């Protein structure tokens, strides 16, 4: 035992020592002398230690020897431990072959099972040679119990896979056909696995089994003769369905029309019957079957498949999969794919940024195929035109290569496709900057060729693209990437029913609220309807007040949303009455006196589109503000908390008796990562928790999922990603609501993702400062203003105020001691890193006024920064700001009045 002892690893050492002592005590040195209990115990321990990662290289013999023990407990240990510790080439295994064979041909079913399991797990050539015929006999024996036969099937499969030359399966097609008639689903499942292996090897020999497989599927799909214990969440043995469909995939065609029809019926049943339900396990099972069914769908019957495309559940499914399926569908059966369907792919890809490179790559791959359907040419051309540039670094994906592979298809397509190709060429041209002269000439030649085309559409495009592409810059604007599609305008999306479905199933699960949240976010102009509570007993001015959320993509105000546009029209009629009469929580609501008809109408469009009666409830479900809203008082001053958070990166944003919202932020260049800490202060759960972000147009905000319920005394962390797109002083708002007991609380909180968070102080020397300062010569890049009503503060205080806002004061630059010069870098997606310079000239005789000059390379930035600094100098906190500070369009040279009025998020933030 010295060899064992030297190992020295702790548990192994202890075990080995224990083992050795025990053996020694029993009868000198022999394992055989131990009691059955001791043998069993030590061999189990060995396996356990092996599992923990210690290389147990002793005791193998003992484990193998237990296989021949007469009683089940020891035998079981022997078999299980042997099959875990040894591999098929281990010498000790040969010693056991005879015992294993005796167990297999013996009468004891339990022993048969153990032996078959061992062989099925680690059986090698020796086992195959001596045992295969016996195992085959067991499998087809009519006297054997299913318990044994199913193991025999898989045991045979293992032997066949490892040594196909040894296991004779000639003439097995008849036996296999017989096996597939099996009624016991356990035996049928393992037989099907065996069948898949045999068919994958050689499907020619097993044609006779094909109708049996279809029959099995029929039996399952119709739920005939399926015992209860094999239905999994109401689905008859999904595993067997999947396996059977896998087997069928190995047959290239189905000759017999009857079989084909039956299969088609089954598949159709699967497709139509699959739906999204609340139970995750059930969804998994039904989609497992669905995916196999899709893979199997015979191209000749593909029209049946198109129906699936309209199904809602696709929305919930993995998105790349959807694109894959549709592209496959087009590839295999383009004739049956209507334009609707490929439009939808395009729409889907356009609206899912993550998907764009993937879709472009897929499209590129399909173009390599020798003959592709015209619809595929259309989709691929469209996708590559829009997103081909995302692939630029891949081999075969340079603009030139993409162009030539698409252009190859041009002679084969009909006139309806040519305009799409022309657009693609124009887009390729636009994306290849600087233009390659050769490619440019080639494309121009094509445009000029089609300028005289008889088809008006083609002619028009050719003429326009030709003219535009010669203008350079203009081409960029017009051909810029397509904006996202407003999904709710597409009746085919049936988004409404998705929302409703989510609500029907008592949307408690996180998944469902995710769907709901996504649905709300996707409709970019979602309306929040709030039940205005009458303040001080005065009758409400209007029952419903509309708050329009800022559109995330402002491009899509078009004809289909007249109801909303109308609401937009009345948006400027801000009635200050309700807000001033209840200055608390509801004061911040933007109340619009719109005709109720409009409200209902637009809500109708958005949410349901069918049953009007439900609308009011639906609407309320979106953002309920109950009557007791103002009975819950916030702790501490919300505005003060916000102002404090503008200067530091962590702290409490809001607190009331039930909830505390903390915030922690990190800023890097134009990115920010905030974490909201939602803490439930009580011993009862907070329910109906909702957090919506009302983002101003210059920020891209992404809030991770907020759970519907916060458990007692628990804190939930919700990360919020922020991207600064443009300079702006508008503030993002968090619309937070929850229910506690009968109290429904809704608060709207400004988020401290403010302009100065995207500043990075930078020291500037005199040599750097003055040339910059002079090069930015005047408006709009350099703006000067005399500010009056400045809070009295010393120059020192002002300098530290500037520093706290990340404007770095550079002492000594200005010769006049009463002046102050500061510099900083501003980060946003549009401006990138941009240097900003500030100069403040004060009058020691009158501290209430000063002259301020701000300069940067971007006019908007200059203006916004100047206004921002002014706000800080004039007043902190905001007490001096006008009660309803509607931004005056005239004061903002860069923002059009139209853009302002369509961005009520900004107005809302202003009201806070």
């Amino acid at each position: 035992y010295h060899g064992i002892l030297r190992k020295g690893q702790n548990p192994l050492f202890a075990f080995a020592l224990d083992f050795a002592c025990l053996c020694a005590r029993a009868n000198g040195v022999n394992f055989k002398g131990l009691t059955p209990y001791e043998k069993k115990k030590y061999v189990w321990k060995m396996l356990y230690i092996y599992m923990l990662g210690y290389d147990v290289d002793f005791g193998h013999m003992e484990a193998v020897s237990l296989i021949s023990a007469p009683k089940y407990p020891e035998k079981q240990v022997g078999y299980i431990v042997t099959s875990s510790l040894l591999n098929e080439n281990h010498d000790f295994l040969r010693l056991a072959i005879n015992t294993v064979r005796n167990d297999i041909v013996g009468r004891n079913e339990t022993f048969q099972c153990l032996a078959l399991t061992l062989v099925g797990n680690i059986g090698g050539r020796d086992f195959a040679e001596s045992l295969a015929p016996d195992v085959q006999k067991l499998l087809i024996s009519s006297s054997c119990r299913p318990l044994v036969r199913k193991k025999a099937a898989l045991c045979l499969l293992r032997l066949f896979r490892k040594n196909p030359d040894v296991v004779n399966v000639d003439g097995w097609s008849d036996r296999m056909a017989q096996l597939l008639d099996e009624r016991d689903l356990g035996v049928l499942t393992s037989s099907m696995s065996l069948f898949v292996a045999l068919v994958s090897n050689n499907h020619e020999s097993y044609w006779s089994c094909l109708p049996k497989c279809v029959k099995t599927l029929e039996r399952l799909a119709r739920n005939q003769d399926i015992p209860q214990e094999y239905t999994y969440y109401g689905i008859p043995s999904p595993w067997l369905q999947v396996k059977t469909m896998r087997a069928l995939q190995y047959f290239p065609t189905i000759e017999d029309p009857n079989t084909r029809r039956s299969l088609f019926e089954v598949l159709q049943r699967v497709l139509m019957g699959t739906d999204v339900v609340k139970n995750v396990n059930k969804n998994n099972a039904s989609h497992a079957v669905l995916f196999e069914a899709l893979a199997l769908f015979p191209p000749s019957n593909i029209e049946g498949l198109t129906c699936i495309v309209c199904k809602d559940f696709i929305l919930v499914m993995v998105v790349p999969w959807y694109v894959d399926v549709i592209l496959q569908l087009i590839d295999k059966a383009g004739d049956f794919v209507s334009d609707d369907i490929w439009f939808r792919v395009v729409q889907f890809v356009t609206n899912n940024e993550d998907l764009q490179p993937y879709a472009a790559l897929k499209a590129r791959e399909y173009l390599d195929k020798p003959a592709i359907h015209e619809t595929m040419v259309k989709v691929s051309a469209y996708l590559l035109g829009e997103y081909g540039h995302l692939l630029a670094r891949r081999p075969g994906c340079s603009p030139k290569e993409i162009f030539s592979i698409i252009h190859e298809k041009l002679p084969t397509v009909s006139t309806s496709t040519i305009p799409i190709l022309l657009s693609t060429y124009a887009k390729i041209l636009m994306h290849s900057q600087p233009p390659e002269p050769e490619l440019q000439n080639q494309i121009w030649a094509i445009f000029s060729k089609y300028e005289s085309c008889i088809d008006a559409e083609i002619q028009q495009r050719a003429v326009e693209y030709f003219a535009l592409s010669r203008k350079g810059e203009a081409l960029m604007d017009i051909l810029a990437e397509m904006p996202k599609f407003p999904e709710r305008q597409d009746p085919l999306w049936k988004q409404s029913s998705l929302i409703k479905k989510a609500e029907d199933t008592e949307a408690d699960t996180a998944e469902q609220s995710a769907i709901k949240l996504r649905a709300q976010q996707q409709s970019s102009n979602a309306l929040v309807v709030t039940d205005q509570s009458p303040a001080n007993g005065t009758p409400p001015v209007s029952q419903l007040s509309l708050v329009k959320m800022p559109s995330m993509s402002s491009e899509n105000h078009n004809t289909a949303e007249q109801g909303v546009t109308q609401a937009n029209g009345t948006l400027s009629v801000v009635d200050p009455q309700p807000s001033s009469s209840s200055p608390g929580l509801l004061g911040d609501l933007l109340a619009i006196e719109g005709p109720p008809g409009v409200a209902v109408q637009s809500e109708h469009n958005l949410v349901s589109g069918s049953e009007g009666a439900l609308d009011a409830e639906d609407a309320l479900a979106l953002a309920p503000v109950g009557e007791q809203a103002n009975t819950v008082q916030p702790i501490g001053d919300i505005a003060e908390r916000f102002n404090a958070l503008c200067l530091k990166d962590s702290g409490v944003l809001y607190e009331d008796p039930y909830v505390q919202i903390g915030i922690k932020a990190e800023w890097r260049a134009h990115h920010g990562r905030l974490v909201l800490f939602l803490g439930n202060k009580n011993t009862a759960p907070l329910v109906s928790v909702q957090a919506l972000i009302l983002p101003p147009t210059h920020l891209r905000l992404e809030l991770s999922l907020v759970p519907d319920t916060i458990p007692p005394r628990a804190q939930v962390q919700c990360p919020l990603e922020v991207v600064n797109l443009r300079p702006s002083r508008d503030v993002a708002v968090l619309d937070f609501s929850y229910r506690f007991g009968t109290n429904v609380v809704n608060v709207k909180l400004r988020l401290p993702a403010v302009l100065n968070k995207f500043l990075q102080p930078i020291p500037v020397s005199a040599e750097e400062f003055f040339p910059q300062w002079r090069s930015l010569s005047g408006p709009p890049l350099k703006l000067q203003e005399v500010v009056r009503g400045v809070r009295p503060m010393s120059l020192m205080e002002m300098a530290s105020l500037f520093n706290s806002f990340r404007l770095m004061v550079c002492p000594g630059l200005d010769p006049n001691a009463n002046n102050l010069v500061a510099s900083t870098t501003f980060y946003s997606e549009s401006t990138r890193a941009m240097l900003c310079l500030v100069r403040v000239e004060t009058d020691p005789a009158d501290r209430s006024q000063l002259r301020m000059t701000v300069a940067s390379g971007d006019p908007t930035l200059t203006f916004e920064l100047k206004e921002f600094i002014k706000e800080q100098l004039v007043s902190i906190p905001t007490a001096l700001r006008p009660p309803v500070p509607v931004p005056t369009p005239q004061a903002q040279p860069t923002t059009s009045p139209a853009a302002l009025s369509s961005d009520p998020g900004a107005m809302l933030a202003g009201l806070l």
Partner: protein
Amino acid sequence: MIRAVIVMNDKGKPRLVKFYEFQPVEKQQELIRSIYGVLCSRAEKVSNFIRADSILGPDARLVYKTYATLYFVFIFDTSENELAILDLMQVFVEALDKCFSNVCELDIVFNFNKVHSILDEIILGGQVIETSSSEVVKAVEEAYRCSSSNSSFTPVVN
């Protein structure tokens, strides 16, 4: 085929390891460690499926699910349907639950042998043998009844 079934706790300690293709013990441990590394750094609301090519060679997939303190991990290749494997995992857990009524990590530790028997009734040689948890439990109970005279044994854990 299914290549391996691993049950480990949230500290990365293996509780059940079964490879259907032989792997030397060092390799097994390396796999378990790297899988644990992947799992414990994964966010909560992400897919249960992971491509495991880098860990287990070409076309290996990994499905995992967390039940209380335990990770259940199945490793398999492209010949299996991922969602079906997820179902199978559910069957396995249901079977454990029926055997130990409200199964917990300790049950798996102290009934190591029985857990192995249950797994052997569900998967054989990397192929699925039975998908009905009640059939599985029936088979296991039956086998153990045969040996009831001597069944008080439970392995002791270090």
